[in-house]
């Protein structure tokens, strides 16, 4: 139990998937212009990351390992992720139309969000148990949300002041903000330790 809490805190603060492992940067740059889109994308990411990790773990440990086909797990994972995203989209369209209109547009983008594949690959590399995997996946996604929300909020305020150098506007300033936040997150280092 304490180990699970350690993994959860580490995934959010000390080993933040966006600010320490630098993952999920493509949507990070394009969506952190307003807190509203950032929030929509984050909710979709939390949902899909946890769901795909929960599906990929049994597939890897119950099918790929016993049949000796560990080698092809990249292909299997990416297909599972693409299929899950498609399925979630269809279910949402059918049963929760208002949810679909709120953050449905973010779902197709998630397949190319490296966070999703990275969480599944990291769970294999670090040999987590099923429970640990769920905690790790959920924590990582929440950490990603925290990072993108902070950067989006700062970016929004910065637009009101509006004296960012011309060449730095857009992707450039987001990188600089993320750098400062990453520097701040280094302060959490040593609080909890995984491995």
């Amino acid at each position, binding site marked *: 139990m304490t180990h699970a809490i350690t993994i959860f805190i580490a995934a959010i603060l000390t080993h933040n998937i966006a*600010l*320490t*492992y*630098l*993952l*999920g*940067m*493509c949507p*990070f*740059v*394009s969506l952190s212009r307003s807190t509203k889109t950032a929030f929509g994308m984050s909710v979709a990411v939390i949902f899909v990351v946890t769901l795909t990790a929960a599906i990929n773990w049994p597939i890897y440990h119950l099918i790929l390992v016993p049949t000796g086909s560990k*080698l*092809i797990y*990249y*292909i299997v994972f*990416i*297909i599972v992720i*693409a299929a899950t995203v498609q399925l979630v989209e269809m279910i949402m369209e059918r049963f929760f139309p208002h949810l679909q209109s709120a953050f449905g547009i973010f779902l197709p983008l998630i*397949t*190319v*969000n*490296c966070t*999703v*594949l*990275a969480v599944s*690959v*990291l769970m294999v*590399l670090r040999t987590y148990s099923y429970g640990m995997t769920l905690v790790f996946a959920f924590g990582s996604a929440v950490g990603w949300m925290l990072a993108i929300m902070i950067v989006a909020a700062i970016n929004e305020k910065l637009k009101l002041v509006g004296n960012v*150098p*011309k*060449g*730095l*506007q*857009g*992707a*450039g*300033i*987001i*990188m*600089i903000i*993320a*750098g*400062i936040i*990453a*520097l701040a997150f*280094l302060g959490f280092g040593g609080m909890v330790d995984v491995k």
Partner: protein
Amino acid sequence: MFLKKYLGADGYKILKLGITRDHPIFAVGLGICSALAVSNTVANAIAMGAGVTFVLVATAVIISSLRSMIPQRARIITYMITIASFVIIVQMFLDAFSPTISEALGPYVALIITNCIIMGRAEAFYVTNGVRLSVIDAVSNGIAYTYTLVAIAVVREILGFGTLLGFQVTPDGWPKWVVMSMAPGAFFLLGVAIWISKTITEGGSEEEEE
């Protein structure tokens, strides 16, 4: 999206555009994850650049030669399986010939699959063009990606570790700027690199990059 510009253009023009105006990282904003994550040492950057270039060229050959057979609705999954297969080859090659680099790159080799450069080029170019032009385009994008990674890595490795490709290049009393080899340094350097690149190309295109 970039298709119209390329129609009727010769190979040289494609090669030049990929490296300069349509630079995948600076101009289009693709493949940023790995550009940040593996640029802490020059050796990692070269390995990653070579891996991505290999996957790009191999994908270009497969997709462009099979383009008339790929069903329109199943094309994204076709790209994914093709890319993932070649990424597995890269992973096996690194495991066999350079275990240290393979360990340093860790999960980032697998993440070549979700590197938007390859998927983006496949969708925008390879699926509608012949093998020759597609390979030229793949090489061009691969070179652009690799030199950016290596350029960032040279700065980060010298400042962060005081070495270049593992050899010490700084005096003994050099204070190692450890943050440069960690995540914040990557963000700052890429931010500055985008700034410089945008300022240089500003005269050409005025519109806001989205």
